[in-house]
């Protein structure tokens, strides 16, 4: 089975996000990017399937900042192929455009099962997995945690609902699944092994096709939510803060006095 995992780089939310002078986009000059956490889960699910049932795992990404190291990390974790699509800048910032570029690339890459993150922190115009499925004419299921083969031509996918309820679907191959979580926490590739992969393995490169779809909407203002919000911030040393919190909880009858 050929499993293809499209991944994308997104701003690392651990860092402060700055808005550019136009007020419509992030200030990307100092932005630190990382693999989208849901894509990381999709990579893990693909590798788990490969480890258990045998498969070839191909990771593919648009050539955006720091993507090389991320793709080498995927190879170090055990992916069989890593492909970067050059010149896909026009698709950035739109899931629909990204999906259209990926769909064209996948025409030339064997894919029985496509696993990608169910969402990303920046997909304002919707989810890549569903748009990709539609562009390829394939069935899709979103918010999946847990994929198992069901004979040679189908997989079983579990879709999560609220309250811990899940629906189990049998989905014909080829298909696209939007992964919420892998069955196990994503494996770790030590830096030494990533370095080794950088020295001994090669990334494949292909030209990105022009997107034939876009978001259909234009951001006119990007802003932080109302400063301060609702919380009354308690200041002081940890001991002082503990005193204040204790007094609040005591006042509400939430601790014994």
């Amino acid at each position, binding site marked *: 089975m050929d499993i293809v995992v499209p991944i994308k780089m997104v701003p690392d939310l651990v860092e402060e996000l700055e808005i550019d002078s136009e007020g419509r986009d992030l200030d990307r000059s100092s932005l630190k990017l990382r693999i989208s956490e849901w894509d990381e889960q999709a990579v893990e699910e693909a590798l788990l399937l490969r480890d258990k049932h045998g498969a070839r795992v191909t990771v593919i990404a648009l050539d955006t900042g720091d993507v090389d190291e991320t793709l080498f990390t995927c190879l170090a974790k055990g992916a069989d192929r890593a492909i970067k699509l050059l010149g896909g800048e026009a698709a950035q910032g739109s899931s629909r455009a990204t999906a259209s570029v990926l769909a064209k690339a996948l025409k030339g890459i064997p894919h029985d099962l496509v696993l990608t993150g169910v969402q990303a922190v*920046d997909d304002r115009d919707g989810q890549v997995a569903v748009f990709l499925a539609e562009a390829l004419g394939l069935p899709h299921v979103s918010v999946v945690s847990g994929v198992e083969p069901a004979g040679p031509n189908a997989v079983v996918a579990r879709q999560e609902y609220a309250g*811990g309820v899940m629906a189990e679907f049998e989905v014909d191959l080829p298909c696209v699944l939007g992964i919420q979580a892998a069955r196990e926490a994503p494996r770790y590739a030590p830096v030494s092994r990533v370095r080794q992969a950088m020295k001994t393995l090669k990334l494949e490169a292909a030209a990105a096709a022009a997107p034939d779809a876009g978001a259909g909407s234009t951001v006119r203002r990007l*802003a932080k*939510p109302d400063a301060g919000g609702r919380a009354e911030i308690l200041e002081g040393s940890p001991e002082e803060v503990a005193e204040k919190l204790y007094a609040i909880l005591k006042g509400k009858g939430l601790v014994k006095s």
Partner: protein
Amino acid sequence: MSQDVAVVIEHLGGKIADIVFEMLGTGRELATSTGGKLLAVAAGQGLAPLAKELGAADAVLLCQGAGLEPYTPDAHQQALAAVLTARAPRITLVGNTSIGMDLGAGLAAALGWPLVAYCRGARLEGGTLVATSQIYGGKLLAEAAVAGEHAIVSMLAGSSPAEAGRAAGASAVEEIAVPAGGPRRVRFRRLIQPAAGDVDITREGVLVSVGRGLQSKDNLPVVEELARALGGTVSASRPIVDQGWLPKTRQVGKSGMTVKPKLYVAVGISGAPEHLEGMRGAELIVAVNTDANAPIFTVAHYGVVGDLFDVLPPLTEKIKASA
């Protein structure tokens, strides 16, 4: 093209999802702006009892057939696409739920309409639809102008009060024929109920909930000790459960539990919309986070900007000492 506003009615096991009533409230405001009707659109089977709860809509459009119950992404998408094609509403609202993620982007692609996702609100300015998405884990709001004659907007839970859309009474019900479909490529097998856990966090009066800020499973005792001192239980945000540090039954949020304890202490939780959805109804929310801009502080009543490992131990000691 009409000036109508459609709301996709999500239902599971004969029960309408709460977010539907929120969207009917939002939809009514939009329909007042467009001058069109508010349409409730549902696919499934045996929907007549559900239609009675949709009195907030001007009309209920039902696409019913044996192949539409239970829900599958492809059959429902095809049925709803037929309804939306026939009625061509100006704006269609779907919930940002698991099912809504299938349908929102699926319908947008099938119909060639724009989609704006993770929305907190939508309004008309002149003739232009303006929708505000909450992105980057809830850290930023993006206000976008949407082009074209039709658009799909996926709404976050908790964006508007559900009371606005709750009305019994007789809306006009119209049946729409199920479109002929090919073989189904997604087949429902079964529904899996959550395994009973050691505790039911929805029944706890005090929850100390922990997130990514915990850093390591070995640090759990810091949180457990505060929970014990408060007579409560430890719950968690998604990453802690995905790491396997706590069982799924302890998860608060979109795909976990919705909790409304007397006290919810969120430590090391940034407060992505998926988490806030599950705990914003708590009576008293206290948040501890190193990031002063963490969205959790927008719903908390009291906040401490600091490291949970500095803040929690003295608080635990103080509570223990006075017990």
